[in-house]
């Protein structure tokens, strides 16, 4: 039995010594963030499932093969693998063809994935789905910084290195991504009286902190 409070580093060490339970804890701890980040890049849940699997297979091979080097942390390390795979896929495919059903809905929106099993309120599902749409609608640079920082857990310095910009630019993009997202969510909620019966909670972003005009 593995203690849930163990650090990633401790879990990797146990796994290197053949403890499968340790790997299971690592997988359960990080699968959601990595999967979400891949999905937001490739925009298709089946592809995201495949790439998640490929990411972990590469990680398993590296750790099992004795090539894992504990210089950084586990999550940023495996996130780099996932990010590279997702970006490679995105570049190859550019856009995955969308299958539209007779009623006009898109195929992947109608599928029953694991997420739906524990959530019983459709309105919350719709709100979350809307949120993912808004993330995907963000300007590319903002969206990528947001995915890399929030879901892949990369530091701003690493993001700056990987995207070839200064750390201040990466921070600025993240800030505008969050502000834009917040504005869109509040606007969406204002129309969703069932979920937010109290009405609109106004976003107050001071103008000198990026409020006012929407910046791309």
């Amino acid at each position, binding site marked *: 039995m593995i203690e849930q409070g163990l650090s990633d580093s401790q879990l990797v060490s146990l796994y290197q010594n053949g403890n*499968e339970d340790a*790997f299971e804890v690592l997988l359960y701890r990080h699968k959601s963030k990595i999967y979400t980040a891949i999905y937001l890049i490739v925009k298709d849940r089946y592809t995201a499932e495949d790439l998640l699997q490929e990411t972990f297979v590469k990680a398993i091979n590296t750790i099992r093969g004795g090539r894992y080097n504990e210089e950084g942390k586990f999550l940023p390390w495996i996130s780099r693998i996932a990010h590279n795979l997702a970006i490679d896929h995105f570049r190859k495919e550019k856009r995955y063809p969308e299958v539209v059903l007779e009623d006009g809905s898109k195929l992947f929106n109608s599928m029953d994935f694991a997420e739906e099993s524990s959530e019983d309120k459709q309105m919350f599902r719709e709100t979350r789905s809307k949120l993912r749409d808004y993330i995907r609608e963000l300007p590319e640079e903002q969206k990528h910084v947001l995915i890399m920082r929030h879901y892949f857990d990369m530091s701003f310095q690493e993001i700056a290195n990987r995207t070839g910009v200064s750390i201040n630019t990466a921070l600025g993009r993240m800030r505008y991504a969050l502000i834009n997202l917040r504005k869109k969510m509040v606007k969406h909620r204002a129309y969703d009286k069932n979920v937010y019966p109290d009405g609109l909670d106004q976003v107050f972003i001071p103008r000198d902190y990026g409020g006012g005009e929407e910046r791309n």
Partner: protein
Amino acid sequence: MDLIRYLYHEITEEEKNEIDRALKRDGKLKALYNEICAALKDLDKAALQPSASTVYNILNYSKSLQPK
């Protein structure tokens, strides 16, 4: 003064204390902080879970490499 680095714990102790103090005295900064916190909470809500079969496949692959 960077709230983003503050919220992601990428600052020194000294910078943290400085922002803590600023949040107490600067209403505009506090308002921005609240909005960014709300956006971050939304991001967590947007997270998806992979299917059980994908998780099962990964675990199975790992077990298949276990020395007999």
